[in-house]
């Protein structure tokens, strides 16, 4: 059957809209995920959406609400236990393992139809309902507003926290805000399109984009572009080859873009924006010949001996 046939179907239109919304949202948060080294936080919150959904089913028979509330709990736990960058990944690992165990326990008490919870892990982009689309629109709008207001200080805090702090940027609070936005985004998207796609659309696009440019705005634009191309392209490709699931194509396209960017990166990014290479090489050479500059009084003595 042709692509045109599918595009006329409401389920396919919903899927395309959902994929585009998740791609734009993921593409927007992605540069900060990569710059702040929070890929594992994305992974952790995405998978723990399962636990939240199971809790939501058990308490209120509502997986979506459970996942969203659960994401706030997860964000708070990560912020509390992993406040220092070096310990963050191990804290997330610990929370993730325990959280998934809790999810399994909760699910064993739930006697209803548990697909809603397990769907969280794998998602079903062809089963997106109108109300789920609304959730995605809401998340996308919230992310766009947060980025519109706090983009600049968040960039400052992510790239240059010491100076940002001295300039009056609330570095710590912005970190919490971003973690919260990230958890909501990832969880909301995961319960609609599945964890796999969230990982593919919230991490990979900026990882590819920052290989190609060091201009932060261009990286953000490329990141959104790559995410949309991978998501919509993968979905349309799955119309053609309907025996293959769309997430296979979407993750494959995303990874292909990443590999191409890594191949093209050295030529595009690393040779750009510099005039007068020779001067730099000269300085490098001198730096290697020069005496150690670090340590106070005694190094001074070495300097003096060279002078004399």
């Amino acid at each position, binding site marked *: 059957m042709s692509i045109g046939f599918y595009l006329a179907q409401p389920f396919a239109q919903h899927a395309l809209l959902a994929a585009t919304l998740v791609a734009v949202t993921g593409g927007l948060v992605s*540069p900060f995920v*990569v710059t702040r080294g929070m890929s594992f936080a994305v992974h952790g919150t995405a998978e723990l959406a399962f636990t939240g959904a199971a809790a939501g089913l058990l308490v209120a028979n509502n997986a979506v609400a459970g996942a969203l509330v659960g994401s706030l709990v997860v964000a708070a736990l990560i912020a509390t236990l992993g406040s220092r960058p070096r310990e963050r990944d191990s804290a997330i690992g610990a929370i993730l393992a325990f959280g998934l165990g809790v999810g399994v326990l909760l699910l064993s008490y739930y006697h209803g139809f548990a697909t809603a919870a397990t769907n969280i892990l794998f998602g079903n982009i062809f089963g997106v309902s109108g109300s789920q689309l609304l959730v995605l629109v809401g998340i996308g709008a919230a992310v766009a507003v947060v980025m*519109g*207001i*706090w*983009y*600049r*200080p968040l*960039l*400052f805090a992510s*790239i*240059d926290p*010491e*100076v*940002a*702090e*001295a*300039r*009056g*940027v609330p570095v710590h609070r912005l970190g919490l805000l971003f973690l919260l936005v990230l958890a909501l985004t990832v969880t909301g998207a995961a319960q609609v399109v599945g964890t796999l796609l969230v990982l593919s659309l919230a991490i990979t696009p*900026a990882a590819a*984009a*920052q290989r190609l440019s*060091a*201009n*932060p*705005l261009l990286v953000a634009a490329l990141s959104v572009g790559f995410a949309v191309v991978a998501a919509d392209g993968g979905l349309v490709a799955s119309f053609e080859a309907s025996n293959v699931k769309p997430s296979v194509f979407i993750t494959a396209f995303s990874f292909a873009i990443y590999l191409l960017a890594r191949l093209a990166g050295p030529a595009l*990014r*690393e040779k*750009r*924006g*510099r*005039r*007068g290479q020779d*001067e*730099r090489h000269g*300085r*490098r050479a*001198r*730096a*290697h*010949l*020069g*005496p*150690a*500059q*670090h*340590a*106070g*009084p*005694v*190094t*001074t*003595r*070495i*300097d*003096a*001996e060279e*002078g*004399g």
Partner: protein
Amino acid sequence: MRGGAAIELRGATLRVGHHLVWEGLDLDIAPGECLAVLGPNGAGKTSLLKVLLGLLPLSGGTAAIDGHPPARGSPSVGYVPQQRAFDRDLPIRGRDLVGLGLDGHRHGLPRTKARRVGQVIDAVGASSYASAPIGLLSGGEQQRLRIAQALVGDPRLLLCDEPLLSLDPSSQGEVVSVIDAYRRTHGATVVFVTHEINPVVGVIDRVLYVAGGRWAAGSAAEVMTSASLSRLYGSHIDVIEVHDRIVVVGGKDGDIHHLDLEHPDGHRDRPRHRGSADREPGP
């Protein structure tokens, strides 16, 4: 000088937990003055800058900048942090870093302020590489851009934390002259934290030496003496002049451990022996 001082410290005391960092610091720094803050690592040089930036409260005494208590984010204060190389993959260029120094604390999307940013990049001599990814630049180049970032808001007070660290001698000289040129043209006050007095000795007016909870302030000739440093360290220190360079020697080799405390980045330095070919590679 009282009342007209750019920085005024009165009985300033800092404790971290039970540890006394420094105590009873009394100092007036005049507008346009350049002060070098020297001392071993852990003596509280960086902490003094944090107090002046409004990031760290004093445990006792008072500090004032232009007659007001230090306030975080003050537009009249420029800050060059302790040098730490940027990651190679960081998606940012030098001109973006400088631009953030101008308005990174404000809400909203980045706006073009190319003219002001371009001017200050020119002024520090970084225009040939300001559009390259910052993580790919040499230590000296990154440092010039950091200084441009601190200067872009036309600060009246410039606080520099070890801006010469891990730079080769010619880059050190260039960085010092960029900072001094700004001070002279703008009448700015400069506080320069450093391990090494020699690269800055030609541009500083006074020295504040902190060690072992004690401090001494005055001209380099007054402070950098055997008597004054021996008192601060509480052990015998020789200060000698060789070819116009001030050389501080910590008595017996065994004392060097105490003097040669730590690198600011936390690695304990190996003791260096006279005449050994102990060299650190460049940045």
